[in-house]
């Protein structure tokens, strides 16, 4: 038992490249920024993030909405605050305080308008909280440049383990609940579940009439979805990157066939960690090739 624990301690403390988590730290906040800017561009921020009495959409707010005393525009101030915090996190300036303030503000926005706070928002907030305990803020960070600090090239692997563990739980929870609710995900006849998902006009992008006579690709994609989600524990093994390709395919497929806003982009950000064993050496080779002789 002690041997197992020591191996685990060793695995958590093992120094790993800080670039995968730094890339995640840069990309996830960008998704949030673009998502909020899109709401502003569409003129919807003032509708989403105001209470019902001030012309908002939702008739209810979450129990944890704590800023009612600041007036009807508190939500809009939060939007601005989140954009600033996410920009700081992404640029690497005051990352840790910006994560704490940004995630708290982002959570409050969710409490103010619960119907619009989706799974991807919770996923991003959780990932940012994990990054809070990493050294991702010490690589590719404006803060280091301004303070003249040397970046941290390698740091303990623990936060990276947690990000992968988190991904595994997300996918496995999704896969197992799919099978519990609808075993037809593995069907070989009838109407494929995935066909119904991607041609549902309320979320999908494809036309149900056009695709109604084509079954096999939907069945195969349904099985692949279940195989990937239920088998997501493979992301914890050395076959992670190969299995991750299936995940990239899944999210690209979702992005092409469904209208879920930043969901696909947000989830694809995590693949900078999953596929790090490929892109980090590739980046190093590219840099060596570009270096003057």
């Amino acid at each position, binding site marked *: 038992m002690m041997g197992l624990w020591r191996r685990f301690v060793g695995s958590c403390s093992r120094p790993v490249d800080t670039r995968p988590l730094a890339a995640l730290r840069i990309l996830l906040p960008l998704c949030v920024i673009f998502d909020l800017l899109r709401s502003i561009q569409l003129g919807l921020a003032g509708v989403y993030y105001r209470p019902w009495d001030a012309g908002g959409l939702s008739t209810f707010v979450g129990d944890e909405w704590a800023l009612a005393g600041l007036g009807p525009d508190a939500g809009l101030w939060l939007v601005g605050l989140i954009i600033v915090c996410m920009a700081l996190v992404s640029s690497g300036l005051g990352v840790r305080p910006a994560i704490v303030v940004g995630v708290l503000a982002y959570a409050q926005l969710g409490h103010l308008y619960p*119907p619009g706070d989706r799974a991807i928002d919770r996923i991003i907030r959780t990932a940012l909280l994990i990054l809070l305990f990493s050294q991702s803020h010490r690589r590719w960070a404006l803060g280091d440049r301004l303070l003249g600090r040397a970046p941290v090239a390698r740091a303990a692997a623990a936060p990276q383990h947690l990000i992968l563990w988190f991904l595994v739980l997300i996918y496995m929870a999704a896969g197992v609940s799919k099978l519990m*609710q609808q075993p037809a995900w593995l069907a070989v006849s009838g109407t494929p579940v995935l066909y119904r998902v991607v041609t549902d006009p309320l979320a999908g992008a494809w036309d149900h009439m056009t695709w109604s006579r084509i079954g096999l690709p939907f069945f195969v994609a349904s099985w692949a979805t279940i195989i990937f989600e239920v088998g997501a524990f493979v992301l914890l093994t050395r076959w992670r990157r190969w299995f991750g390709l299936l995940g990239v395919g899944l999210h690209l497929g979702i992005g092409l066939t469904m209208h879920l806003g930043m969901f696909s982009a947000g989830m694809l950000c995590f693949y900078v960690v999953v596929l790090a064993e490929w892109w980090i050496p590739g980046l190093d080779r590219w840099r060596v090739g570009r270096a003057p002789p």
Partner: protein
Amino acid sequence: MTRSEARDHLRALAVVVAATALLVTGFPGLDFASRKEMREGVSVAGRIAAPLGTLMAGVAWFDLELRRPLARLVRPVERTFRVAQEFHLYRDGPRRVDRLEVLVDGEVVYRTRDARHGWRAAQFGNRHLRPMVGTAAQKPDAVNQKGICRWIVARVQEDFPTAKEVVIRSSRTEFGVEAPWVRFSRVARAPDWTVSRVRKMTRP
């Protein structure tokens, strides 16, 4: 033990705590089942085969006596940061094709995913609004429909200043079948623009 070793052990312990918190709050499969379903599962499994019943009883014990009490400890953190760990992403597709339609003075101006009737389609399709559009199209008594109806009526008044009537209705068809039928509708008329109660219709 050196300070560095002690720090390594503490770090590993923190990982165990964090990983356990994530696991107990979003345990794949168990997070999906209610207490009642868990108890019923034990009874059903026991009727199929005794060993299966014993196994299910063990799972139920783990869930009800261990996982849920532990998850309750994490709830305050979950609520503060709004990071509930239940991810049942697209368990199933809908059984039928539902669309939301908006008619201004009898003319369809918006229909979900219909390029010919694309009034404010980018807004209707925004990910934060889409859930409300969805429930308004699918559930006649949806809690959310009040807000989306009020928003639609206000936007119609902006874009069609001479309009006298707005109908917000749900149309439904089967997958692979073209012709939809109207399930229910809500109506608002000038000058007060109060959205009337839902009118449900029977399938032709």
